[in-house]
């Protein structure tokens, strides 16, 4: 690269000339200066090489690239990116805190809902218990009343039945007596024979027998 100083010096003096020289359309030059083709003079375009591949400019471009890229890297890694990361981290943390708060609140709400539902279910169970208890008590009461009533009615029926039976027996006894008297009367009327009541009764019993 020791020759480059010489070539660069030549190129820099040529640079303004390139701008002024009327380039014929887009036709490029026939090569680098000093290439020695016949057409170079006729074309008369650029004397330097194709600028992006012009090796004379390489050292200075590499130098400034290293300088500026190094500067950018330092600025990014020491200044800009940590700040950016801090901003994002801050947001992340705030969001996290808010989210955790929200989830805590949600848990609270859920537990409140759960306890409310539990109270509701308890109350319902209690009401049901009371209802069944009342129903049972009332049934038992009704049942007791009825059985009491039934026993008293049965007792009355039984008393009535015994009275009826007594009356019936009495009636039957009366019927026999009346029959004997009547029979004795009939016999006395018909035969004139006096028949005691006892004999008549005996006779009737014999008839019946």
């Amino acid at each position: 690269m020791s020759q480059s100083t010489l070539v660069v010096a030549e190129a820099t003096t040529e640079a303004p000339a390139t701008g002024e020289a009327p380039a014929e359309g887009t036709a490029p030059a026939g090569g680098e200066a000093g290439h020695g083709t016949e057409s170079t003079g006729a074309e008369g375009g650029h004397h330097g090489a194709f600028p992006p591949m012009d090796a004379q400019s390489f050292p200075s471009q590499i130098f400034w690239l290293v300088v500026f890229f190094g500067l950018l890297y330092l600025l990014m890694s020491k200044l800009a990116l940590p700040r950016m990361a801090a901003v994002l981290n801050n947001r992340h943390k705030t969001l996290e805190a808010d989210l955790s708060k929200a989830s805590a609140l949600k848990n609270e709400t859920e537990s409140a809902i759960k306890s409310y539902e539990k109270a509701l279910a308890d109350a319902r169970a209690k009401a049901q218990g009371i209802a069944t208890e009342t129903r049972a008590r009332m049934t038992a009461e009704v049942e007791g009343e009825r059985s009491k009533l039934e026993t008293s009615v049965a007792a009355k029926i039984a008393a009535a039945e015994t009275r009826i039976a007594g009356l019936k027996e009495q009636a039957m006894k009366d019927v026999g007596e009346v029959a004997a008297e009547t029979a004795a009367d009939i016999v006395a009327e018909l035969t004139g024979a006096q028949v005691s009541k006892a004999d008549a009764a005996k006779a009737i019993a014999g008839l019946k027998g």
Partner: protein
Amino acid sequence: MDPVAAKMIGAGIACIGMGGAGIGVGHIFGNFLAGALRNPAAASAQFTNALIGAALAEGLGIFSLVIALLLLFAV
């Protein structure tokens, strides 16, 4: 042959290589699209890989462009 004309012709021929890069990039995105339509859920995750493939394929075409430029301006 006139050396300038030869250089121009050579540069033009070198640029045919760009067509190959075009075919390659087209293949990559065409196949990516075909796969993406079959399984759209996985498409977004693979788009980066499609871009890498396209860049690699295109880079080879750029070589031929650079050859053409070298022929035009540097040789």
